[in-house]
């Protein structure tokens, strides 16, 4: 699925690897194709419109569910953004139906009578224990309300915006290297530190071992996204 410019996230990972001399290969997994959970270091699920999402949901369950579980078990990074986040959970409601998800995380998404949750958003996250909290800034646009199971931890705390359900004060989900978030589309171009965290985690190396890059524009873009969210 690719509706909210998911390409920006992939481009970000690809270029930043290439500039550091790291070999990066992007493989698309199309409808009907099985997914080998041992063949890749990072799995990305993007957003989609309702019709696309239904097709993807059926396909994920039929052909990719097993592969994604294998990937998560071996510590590969699985990143679900927007619709991809909803599909990672145990179930979600589309129209009048409740559809089972991939079930990598105990997360349920329901439809709500209220308005879509739309706008700039900023959240505070602590990806590694003991490290200072960092800010993720982006844009959310979702009709569904996502509820975490009792044992599930959110990705972060909402500083500005709506988050998972508009009132819990939490955004996204994080279990090991499985991450789901409503911060859609070009999340990484606005949060270059997360791009590097994902690269390092996928490669199982310390983030400090990544060669530094000139991120002057990226840092300015992050400031711009924070400012847009009112931070």
């Amino acid at each position, binding site marked *: 699925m*690719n*509706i*909210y*410019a998911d*390409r*920006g996230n992939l*481009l*970000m990972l690809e*270029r930043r690897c290439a500039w550091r001399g790291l070999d990066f290969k992007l493989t698309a997994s199309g*409808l009907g194709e099985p997914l080998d959970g041992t063949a890749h270091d990072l799995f990305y699920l993007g957003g989609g*419109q*309702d*019709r*696309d999402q*239904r*097709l993807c949901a059926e396909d994920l369950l039929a052909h990719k569910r097993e592969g994604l579980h294998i990937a998560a078990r071996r510590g590969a990074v699985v990143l679900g953004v927007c619709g991809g986040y909803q599909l990672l959970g145990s179930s979600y409601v589309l129209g009048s139906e409740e559809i089972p998800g991939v079930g990598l995380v105990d997360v349920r998404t329901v439809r709500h009578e209220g308005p*879509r949750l*739309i*706008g*700039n958003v900023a959240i505070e996250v602590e990806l590694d224990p003991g490290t200072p909290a960092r800010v993720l800034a982006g*844009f959310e*646009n979702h009709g569904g309300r996502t509820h975490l199971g009792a044992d599930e931890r959110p990705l972060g705390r909402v500083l500005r915006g709506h988050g998972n359900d508009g009132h819990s004060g939490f955004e996204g989900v994080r279990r090991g290297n499985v991450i789901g978030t409503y911060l*859609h*589309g*070009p999340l990484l*171009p*606005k949060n270059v530190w997360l791009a590097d965290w994902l690269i390092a985690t996928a490669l199982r190396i310390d983030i400090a071992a990544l060669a530094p890059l*000139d991120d002057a*524009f*990226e840092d*300015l*873009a992050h*400031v*711009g*996204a924070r400012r*847009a969210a009112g931070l």
Partner: protein
Amino acid sequence: MKAPLAPTLALARSLGALSRLRGGGGTSAPGKLLMRLDPGAIGALAGRLTRGSVVISATNGKTTTAAFTSGILRHHGISLVHNRAGANMAGGIASTLLDAAGPRGAIRGELGLFEVDEYWLGDLVSQLRPRAILLGNLFRDQLDRYGELESIAERWAGTLDADPAREARLVLNADDPMVADLGRAREGTQREAEVLYYGVEDDSLALAGMAHAADAKHCRRCGAPYVFDAIYLGHLGHYHCPSCGQRRPAPSITAADVALEGVRSARFTLHTPTGRADVQLALPGLYNVYNALAAAALAYALDIPLPTIVAGLQATAPAFGRAESVTVAGRSLRILLVKNPTGANEVLRTLALEPGQHDLLGVLNDNIADGRDVSWIWDADFELLAGRLRRVTCAGTRAAELAVRLKYAGIDPAAIEVQPDLAMALDTAVASGSSGPEESDPPPLYALPTYTAMLSLRQLLVSRGEARSAWS
């Protein structure tokens, strides 16, 4: 419906003028007041038009398609009431009608020509009761404002299925599966002949694959992915559904032998059931061929003869910000509006046809009229400009994100400067051409602004005496 009373019109006019004097509101202020004073005002005023109304809606190309249509109809001697300034929601259309209204039920103009915002189509069709409705395309635009693409298609289908649209002539783009499918409801009915399709027939234009911004890849009827036999622009092209058999309807108004001449012009052969003719446009790009073709189809539906259609299309100059050229401090600056990925891709594709190096002023705003979400720039193929840009100045409220986009598109970061302030950015962009004695002839300078950025740029140029006012 009772006619609005003259005092109501006068009151709305003077209050509107007052609020404009105080710097509040734009062209739609008097119309919004009028609607508050008399909610039936649009219908009542439109009812005075002796030749009725036509409406044009699309994600991309509304203003230019309306400009082409205006060129044709005026050439035919029809006087128009036309929301030329692009104020295309109810308030703007009410203002346009208010401006044209005279005393005792009079109105200056025979036919209403209205470009209508996608979201407002149903509301305005029910008030304007148009005799013809032209629907051009549905691309992903400002999702934060409108919800998703398919919900707009559903709204449109509902509008067309209800009175008074059921009585209107429909002009639909055969090449957009979501738009063409809206004619299905009339298939097999006695109104079937009232649907006119237009489309491009030129295999040489077909793109290798779906562009990144492509939408509507799945059949509206059965959900299966479409098979595209040719793609011309975004998801516009020749398609069929392998599952339910839905096909692109055969258009009766077509463009063939299209020749794109960089950022300056385009040519094509216009085929209609009554004959064919060569058309030379003063506007560039395949997207403007689509706009001209749409206007030709609408004019054909209004029984305008072919030679008049051709003359009107050829006499149409760019609408403001749509490939318009101005001179700034002795340097020629061409302004190309970009507001969503498909539109931006066509501008970039057109720009890439120009030989040599370019200078660029990119202005990315995230105001409400631009869409607060700037994600779309990541779906625009700025990669087409890699290796082709000498200097880039990024401006606007989200200038830095545009700089990041260009950097990851393969443009040398050393050539990029971030200057959020538009006035300073314009100075920088213009000056970077004349500096350095070794560069006697600076490369052409292009501005790619989002919607509100285009309005600001325009205002800036007017205040510096570099461009005539768009509102004059």
